């Protein structure tokens, strides 16, 4: 599904040049659950952002389902993200001015799905994350765990193929953290490819494969457990 070749990212200021990624070559298969680990500043989030097309590499190539991503313009990247990629962030990144329902509905609006269908899909996914009773609440009125569940609902409401999570439990207590990881694991079991960036060994245990990064380079790869055979039911049965 994902293939990168010598992916490099340089951050340049007037005086200093920092190499965040140094020729990273990586392959992720469909249905995999991959965890990226490493110390702060090693380039984990940079790699995740590039994989999610939120940032572009300085050099190297990146292809998603056989399509060359690093050559795409902004509109093509947006089109690629739409319906294919879902994002979960440590700080949730919900829009404060929109209600729970409206936050989850947002990707469907941009996909041009009609209001009736949107409502059904949003309600269904919110039911799955146990937030149907909070549809009219604003993000500030929810706990951290609830906010992250809203973010997950927003990420999967489009039936995305790849879910990218940047420290999804970083701002949560252990109970909520486990709950979130269980949700991600369920999604993976139903066929969604998941890549997470984490500091937590506990979270990494949910992954099939753990990639260790140091100074922008992959220094180790550990297989936690073999990948199960995929049953592509997606989040219909979340």
């Amino acid at each position: 599904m994902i293939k990168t070749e010598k992916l490099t990212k340089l951050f340049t200021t007037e005086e200093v040049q920092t190499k965040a990624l140094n020729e990273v070559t990586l392959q992720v298969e469909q249905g995999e659950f991959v965890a990226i680990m490493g110390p702060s500043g090693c380039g984990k989030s940079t790699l995740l952002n590039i994989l999610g097309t939120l940032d572009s590499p300085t050099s190297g190539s990146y292809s998603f389902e056989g399509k060359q991503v690093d050559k795409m313009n902004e509109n093509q990247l947006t089109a690629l993200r739409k319906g294919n990629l879902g994002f979960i962030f440590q700080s949730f990144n919900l829009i404060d001015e929109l209600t729970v329902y409206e936050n989850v509905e947002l990707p469907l609006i941009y996909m041009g799905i009609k209001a009736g269908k949107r409502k059904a899909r949003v309600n269904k996914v919110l039911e799955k994350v146990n937030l149907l009773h909070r549809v009219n609440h604003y993000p500030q009125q929810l706990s951290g765990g609830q906010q992250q569940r809203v973010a997950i609902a927003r990420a999967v409401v489009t039936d995305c193929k790849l879910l990218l999570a940047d420290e999804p439990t970083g701002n949560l207590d252990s109970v909520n953290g486990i709950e979130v990881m269980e949700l991600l694991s369920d999604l993976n079991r139903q066929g969604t490819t998941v890549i997470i960036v984490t500091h937590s060994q506990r979270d990494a245990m949910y992954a099939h494969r753990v990639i260790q990064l140091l100074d922008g380079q992959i220094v180790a790869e550990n297989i936690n457990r073999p990948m199960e055979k995929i049953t592509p039911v997606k989040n219909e049965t979340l």
Partner: protein
Amino acid sequence: MIGNYWNSAWRNLMKRKKFSFINIFGLAVGMASALLILTYVAFEFSFDKMHAKHDRIYRVQSTFYEGEVLTDYWASSSFGYGSAMQENLAGIEDYTRIASLFQPEQLVKYGELCLRENEIAYADPGFFRLFDFELLKGDRASCLSMPGQVVITERIARKYFRDEEPMGKILVFNSNIGKVSCEVTGVMKEMPSNSHIHYNFLLSYKSLPKWVQEYWYKHETYTYVLLDSRERKEEIERAFPGMAEKYKTEEALKNKTWGVRLVPLEDIHLTPQLGYEAEQKGNRSAIIALVFAAVAILVIAWINYINLTVARSMERAKEVGVRRVVGAFPQQLVGQFLFEALVMNLIAFVIAVGLVEMLLPAFNLLVGRTVSFSVWLTGYWGLSVFLLFVCGVYVSGYYPARALLRKKPIMLLKGKFQNGRSGERTRKLLVVVQYTASMILLCGTLIVFAQLNYMRRQSLGVRTDRILVVKFPGPTEGMKIKMEAMRKAIRKLPLVSKVTCSGSVPGEEVAMFLSNRRTHDALKQNRLYEMLSCDPDYMDAYGLELVAGRGFSEDYGDDVNKLVINETAARTLGYTDYESVIGEEISVETIEEPMQVIGVVKDYHQQALNRNYTPIMLFHKDKIDWIPQRYISIVMKPGDSLELVSQISEIWTTYFADSSFDYFFLDQFYDRQYRQDEAFGVLMGGFTGLAIFISCLGLWILVMFSCAVRTKEMGIRKVLGASRLNLFYQLGKDFFIPILIAIVIALPVAWFSMNAWLSHYAFRTELKAWFFLLPVVLIVLISFLTVAGQTITVIYSKPARSLRYE
């Protein structure tokens, strides 16, 4: 999608109420100012366009040339021009003459009711063929076709006939040409306020004395011609002088080339004021200045909106980032920002319309017009303003959106959004534009008031204070004896110092032009002079200063045949040494015997200082019968002027019970000439104040955001030992440098533009350095206070707090 945009826009608006209020209020005030000015400007440009044939109607204006030199140019034409032009020149489809200068003020009698009325004109039947003034009663074709007919306005009909049917009633008009009885044959609607033609009574042209109806030597009528095509204009103007030669049968002005200029009906109101004008015209340069002010205020307001929205977009970066991550195309986000801009602009627009509605009555009072929103329906004004609004919405929505979309989504999500250098440069450039416009407006306002002040303080050379002017009674039997007796009775009143009668008073054009020359001039060079009829007390009463010879005096016995002239008239006669003109004989048009110059008075301002001195000849009231006496001027001693008015009114009733008693105070009458300039000054001042206020509002918010972003930096600087002054410099320099650049750009622009404006005044103030220095000091001071007001909290806060919270 729109629902989502609306939710986002509305909740953002409500989330930061103070910010939203400042943003919308600034925009609304800017829009209201611009809307008010543009409504007024549209009104001024809408003059005389209500007539279907307006694009082919021209006013015939008289010109007189000596060789290539244009010596005289009047708005009026002679009684005979219209008919002669139609008879002799091709391309004139129709014409009408409006003789309103001949007897504009008459006593009108209906039964016992006798009132002095003005705005009286004689018009021929073509009037209702050319113009579309609404006739409520009567037949357009025949209501002015016979002698003894009059068409009146609705208001006049109510005034004289109350609930009676006005049609067929007889009104008696009493003036110097005698009494004329006229049957009311029509009632018309009040003429619109955006028409330069305004009359209360239209008497049929045939009601004029026969001798004057086609007379070529009295330029006291307005002639309007309807051309078969606009291309005919030059052809007719070229052909007129040749045709006029046939009609120049008298000696007067024979040496001059009589010509005409055809001025399109719709241009009359905004072309320069000429002699014999029908109205106080609009001032084109003032209107252009106001348009500049309107656009400047609107641009300043929109720049504020852009700057504030961009500044706030730092807060909204996350929202934009999320929207991009979940699949919004850049153009969809642009659409969202445009939608928000539309919402904000529409709210501001609605408030602005409300504000304008509220202000219009006071505004109309100030400018002396009846401006309303209906002018937007004329021409392309409405469409232009709509397009301006759309452009404003587009730019104010698009620019902030672009500023955000240039960033990578991840940068926005991390909240690391800061405007780049180019964004910062653009914002500074916008501040420069705002302050340049404000500076130019401020300099301009100061100079307008300086000029007004100059005109008011300048010695007029003629007394205007403490003078009560009573209008002459209508012709009655034994007029001369009665008048003399009344004059003596008034003179005896304890509050009266002097009494004098004259044909004109300062504050208006003398306007009685005669073509005169030195009797012994070998070249027989005739020139036009304004002839002021007066009695021997006039010069003393008005404090005219003699520079040579003497004034009129009863002591000399034969002063009836003498002239006193002003310095300009002496120069026009060819004398620079005023002593040598004394005793010179002058051939005065219509007078057989030459008249002798006995004195030269110093030039004085018969009219406001925007008009140059004109050649004036003062003659004894008994010399030329047909130039009427119109005013009795009473110089008052200190005391209760209203008490004096009541005393004079009693005396008046004794002698002229048939005539209405009408009076005015000369200083107010003279000052009304400055009304337009004053209104312009007040408008410019008001709008400049608003422009500066809106600019400062913008600056205030920008500094507020800048402080919010730089709190940590300031904390670190404080820890490292920076002084408060240094911190203020650090926070303020980004704003003061654009302001200084604005000053450098604005000063020369203001100098050139105001120099051009002042050149319209014959007597004008000199441009002084402080006109430009004061605005600089003011702008810098106001900006300093604005920046200081915002930065003081950051400068005085404990560094530990800012560092901890950052």
